[in-house]
């Protein structure tokens, strides 16, 4: 079931809910993703924002880019604040008649994978009707590129440098969507701003459910990934085309790969355009590269098997 499917770019024109003049770096992938998500969202909309690049660059106090009600709380409690807003709207509805609002909470990967995961889990378990979006730039960017639970194996950050002891981050990326899906919420999906139609339709689908939903969107960051700002969408697309970032959804427990990648590009093509990862192509780091490839392959294979179960 898909209510109000987005079929062309033209029907999104004029639906922007953010203003320019925000202070995100030129070419910020997070802002492209957030723009697309807001354009697709049902209205009236209330946005909750965890402390992050998005919060800091969107609202240089007393200015704000948001054209919808927006609330910033702490780094760790976007999901809690969203729960409270939803509960308050329910109480108001009982008193004064139906208050129809949609709520989207945005958190970075640090704010979602790490510090906010407890608040998120609680909100999903309680079943509040809201969409949580984790925009993932794979590190704590706003404070200067520290590694997070979302940073991939081998990536250089300021707290996981490439040196004689370690070659970037030692651990694999946490599989957050699987943790979220384990709450058995109605809808959870990955997305990429390069695939705008897939992303905007996932927003519409998520908001059609009377319960919690979750979207995990890749947000290439030229400052922390070290690539030319003009490559933001190209990098996001390479992530999908190399199977590094599988586009899939878990709808009422049913897995579906929403964008099949029958002949993937070599993972090296995604790695070589970013200085945080390009050292993995050096012969001395072959072992780390093999480990990352194995992680990507195993994940894809697992998703394919799960999708096959439900077709």
């Amino acid at each position, binding site marked *: 079931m898909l209510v109000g499917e987005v079929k062309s*770019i*033209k029907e*999104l*024109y004029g639906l*922007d809910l*953010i*203003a*320019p*003049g*925000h*202070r*995100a770096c*030129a*070419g*910020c*992938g997070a*802002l*492209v993703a957030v*723009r*697309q998500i807001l354009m697709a969202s049902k209205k009236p909309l209330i946005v909750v924002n965890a402390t992050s690049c998005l919060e800091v660059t*969107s*609202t*240089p*106090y*007393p*200015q*704000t*880019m*948001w*054209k*919808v009600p*927006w609330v910033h709380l702490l780094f760790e409690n976007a999901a809690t604040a969203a729960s409270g807003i939803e509960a308050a709207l329910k109480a108001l509805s009982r008193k004064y008649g139906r208050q129809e609002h949609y709520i989207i909470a945005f958190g970075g990967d640090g704010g979602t994978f790490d510090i906010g995961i407890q608040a998120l889990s609680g909100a999903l378990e309680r079943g509040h009707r809201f969409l949580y979006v984790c925009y993932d730039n794979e590190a704590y960017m706003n404070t200067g590129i520290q590694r997070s639970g979302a940073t991939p194996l081998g990536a250089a950050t300021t707290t996981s440098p490439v040196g004689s002891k370690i070659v970037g981050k030692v651990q694999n990326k946490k599989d957050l969507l699987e943790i979220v899906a384990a709450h058995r919420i109605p809808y959870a999906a990955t997305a990429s*701003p390069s695939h*705008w139609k897939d992303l905007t339709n996932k927003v519409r689908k998520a908001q059609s459910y009377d319960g919690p939903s979750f979207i995990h969107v890749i947000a290439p960051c030229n400052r922390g990934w070290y690539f*030319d*700002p*003009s*490559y*933001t*969408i*190209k990098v996001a697309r390479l992530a999908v085309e190399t199977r590094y970032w599988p586009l899939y959804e878990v709808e009422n427990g049913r897995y579906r790969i929403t964008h099949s990648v029958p002949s993937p590009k070599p993972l090296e093509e995604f790695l070589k355009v970013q200085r945080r990862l390009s050292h993995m192509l050096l012969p001395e780091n072959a072992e780390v590269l093999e480990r990352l490839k194995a992680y990507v392959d195993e994940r894809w294979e697992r998703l394919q098997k799960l999708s096959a179960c439900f077709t």
Partner: protein
Amino acid sequence: MVKVETAILPGGVVSRPGSTTDYKTGTWRVKKPTVDLNKCTGCLICWIYCPEPAILKRHDGKIEFNYDYCKGCGICAEECPPKAISMVEE
């Protein structure tokens, strides 16, 4: 001169939606996108990928830039299918 509202309301309330337009991020730009309207098909791919947004649709369906806010990232030039956009030195 950049006009910046300084009044601070109780509770940290931000009273003006979309007020970042007070600040012209176009001054950050090093290279500037220009469009060849003979090549532009009006597909709006550039627009959907602009992070600001700093691209507008003209009456004829083709596009123009809002140089007050365009930061010159070059995504639009990279993504335009017919390569109608080029980045030129300011």
